[in-house]
């Protein structure tokens, strides 16, 4: 289906893809793994014909569809209208007509998505990513490329996606799956390709490798084992809010943003809510400041780039040019440094906080609210974010972690609350949560 030979693509001084050759056959599910900035997305954009390679050749049979990590939807239009936009050529139709077509396309894709008359702006991120997928499948591509498709999906939705991928492969579609999550890669891929620094560094059939060796190939060193719970905290704690996406997590985070302006807020949707892509790193870091002094800001940004190991050309680089993980580090640097500079924050944020549900309150006043802080990040960046949050807790900060990644919740949290239809459960210890979480997330009393 796709044959790439000696492909190289540079952006400015950065070699995003460096002499990569890769062939993907009909009916094959190939996982492309690697850290943020390893060149996976760039390589696949070349494969899909979105970018022209600087060197090398591309041979492609049939259409290739790339489902982006960032949504390419028109927020003001409905699900049905967004699907109708993909229709080639001119035609007359009616609202009813395109809604019927949309329902047919959704049914044919095997993905569950209801309410085609809803505007995209009203959809949860999970639903949006489903819509992107349906859009791509509806065009009947010979090759389907999915960029981090599971980062916004619940476990059940992920299973559903894998079923769809297997069915498409069975029908002869070549499927490429870009991911950081090794268990998922092993669950669905037949062949696994590892990229690092723009090159393919390992390639093997799924049954011939294991997670440890893949992780080693990705980061070029053995990944550290998750460490034991930090000890010696004074007052600091991490409370995780878990639940199926769309149960009020977004509203809770937005409400805390408005009610606790003094706290650090790490938003769920970093490209929309976290980063001003057109501003520089220095400017993004300074948005919370009282004063804007370009020279000071540049020096501060240089320190932050070093402290948070942000991979950037310098403080004056456009934040939008950074990879997702590095954008997240910029947000983290802005928000965490801010609370660090203001030890009086706990007084500022002393009112008890009401949860979105009518009756339940959070059992804490968070100084840091982190919503899906590691969504779409690679192993290295995820570990970095986790370390930062642990360190803040060890320094006495109370942290609210809103996450749909249960592993993350259990790895970090001192207490867990489940959110379901806008209501929070009682505070559970991790041990209690391990027993009850499935029931609570499903809303079974």
């Amino acid at each position: 289906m796709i044959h790439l030979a000696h492909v190289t693509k540079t952006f400015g001084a950065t070699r995003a893809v460096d002499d990569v050759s890769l062939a993907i056959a009909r009916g094959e599910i190939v996982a492309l793994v690697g850290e943020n900035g390893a060149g996976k997305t760039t390589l696949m954009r070349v494969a899909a014909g979105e970018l022209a390679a600087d060197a090398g050749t591309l041979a492609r049979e049939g259409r290739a569809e790339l489902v982006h990590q960032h949504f390419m939807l028109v927020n003001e239009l409905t699900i049905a209208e967004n699907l109708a936009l993909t229709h080639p050529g001119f035609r007359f139709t009616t609202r009813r007509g395109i809604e019927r077509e949309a329902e047919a396309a959704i049914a044919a894709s095997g993905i569950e998505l209801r309410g085609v008359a809803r505007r995209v702006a009203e959809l949860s991120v999970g639903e949006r990513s489903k819509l992107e997928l349906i859009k791509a499948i509806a065009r009947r591509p010979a090759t389907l490329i999915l960029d981090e498709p599971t980062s916004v999906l619940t476990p059940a939705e992920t299973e559903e996606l894998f079923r769809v991928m297997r069915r498409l492969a069975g029908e002869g579609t070549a499927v490429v799956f870009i991911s950081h999550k090794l268990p998922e890669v092993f669950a669905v891929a037949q062949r696994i390709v590892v990229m690092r620094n723009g090159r393919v560094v390992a390639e093997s059939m799924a049954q011939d490798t294991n997670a440890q060796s893949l992780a080693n190939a990705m980061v070029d060193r053995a990944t550290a084992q998750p460490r034991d719970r930090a000890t010696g905290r004074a007052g600091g704690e991490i409370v995780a809010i878990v639940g199926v996406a769309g149960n009020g997590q977004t509203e809770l985070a937005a409400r805390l943003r408005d009610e606790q302006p003094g706290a650090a807020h790490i938003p769920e949707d970093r490209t929309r809510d976290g980063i001003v892509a057109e501003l520089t790193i220095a400017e993004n870091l300074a948005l919370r400041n009282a004063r804007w002094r370009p020279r000071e800001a540049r020096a501060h940004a240089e320190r932050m780039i070093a402290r948070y190991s942000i991979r950037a050309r310098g403080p004056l680089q456009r934040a939008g040019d950074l990879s997702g993980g590095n954008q997240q580090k910029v947000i983290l640097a802005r928000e965490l440094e801010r609370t660090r500079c203001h030890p009086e924050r706990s007084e500022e944020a002393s009112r008890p906080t009401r949860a979105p549900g009518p009756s339940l309150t959070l059992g804490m006043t968070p100084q840091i609210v982190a919503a899906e802080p590691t969504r779409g990040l690679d192993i290295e960046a995820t570990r970095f974010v986790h370390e930062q949050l642990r360190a803040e807790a060890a320094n006495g900060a109370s942290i609210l972690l809103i996450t749909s990644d249960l592993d993350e919740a259990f790895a970090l949290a001192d207490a867990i609350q489940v959110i379901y239809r806008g209501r929070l459960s009682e505070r559970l210890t991790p041990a209690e949560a391990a027993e009850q979480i499935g029931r609570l997330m499903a809303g079974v009393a």
Partner: protein
Amino acid sequence: MSRLLSAVLAAVAAVLLLAATAALFGHSPLALLSILVRSSVGSRFAIEGTLLKSVPLLLTGLSVVIAFRAGVWNIGGEGQFIVGALAALAASRFGVVASLLAAMLAGAAWASIASAMRLWRNAPEVLTTILLNFTAIHLLGWSVNGPLRERAAQYPQTDLAAAALPPLASGIHSGVLLALAASVATWWMLYRTMEGLRLRATGFNPFAARWAGIRVGSQLARAMAISGAVAGLAGGIELLGVTHRLFERFAAGYGYSGIAVALLAQLHPLATIASAFFFGALVTGAGELQRTADISAGVATFGQAVVILLLIVFDHVRSTR
């Protein structure tokens, strides 16, 4: 294609297209270009004329730069220009400074009506500012025919303003310096103050701005007010420096032309100086074409339109690279 290059190309292409179009109607393009250049920058007198036209264009251009940078679509420069001039006339007996301050306040207040309608009824400012233009135009028309009509009651115009901007040289008033200072001040505000950083952040991404603790609604309202103040100042300076009295066609489209000026400058306050001078030259040259070659001075508007269209095309080319 760099932003500067696409701006220069658009400007050059607009002038060439203008000449080519004139050729279609039997005029010699070279002769036209020569008239255009000679009458706009070919002599000291020509340059003075161009400068006089550039001053209001520069200020209304800056007004648009500020608003568009914040992501608020202030199309109301024309109306703010007019109410600014009305206020300047009313306050002119307190001196030039008071008169110009009144112009800025009035422009800001007029623009803020649109902000208020946005906040209370979510009315889009593209619409409300345009409607406020018509309101201002009719307010001016009524004023010069009614309460503000000159004592001689001969023409529909006001008496001379009680103050005037001191001349800089023969034919040039000191508003030129004020306009240049306004460019630098706008640049300083946008790129050297927290207000400017917040304004730009809000314009680029209001969602992220909100998460970063910026109160987006009041940020937009402030940007609109500042933008209106600069357009009002343009009206005040035009009154005190050039016309010295008001009449129905006083605004002459300066408010709308500011959009073309700002877009050609790629929304940069210092580039707006060059952009305003270019359009000022175009307007001056077009006036001469009308006198000597019997071509409507409307070709200046044609030039503006071509520049905007070309910029849109170039932007598209750039973004799809």
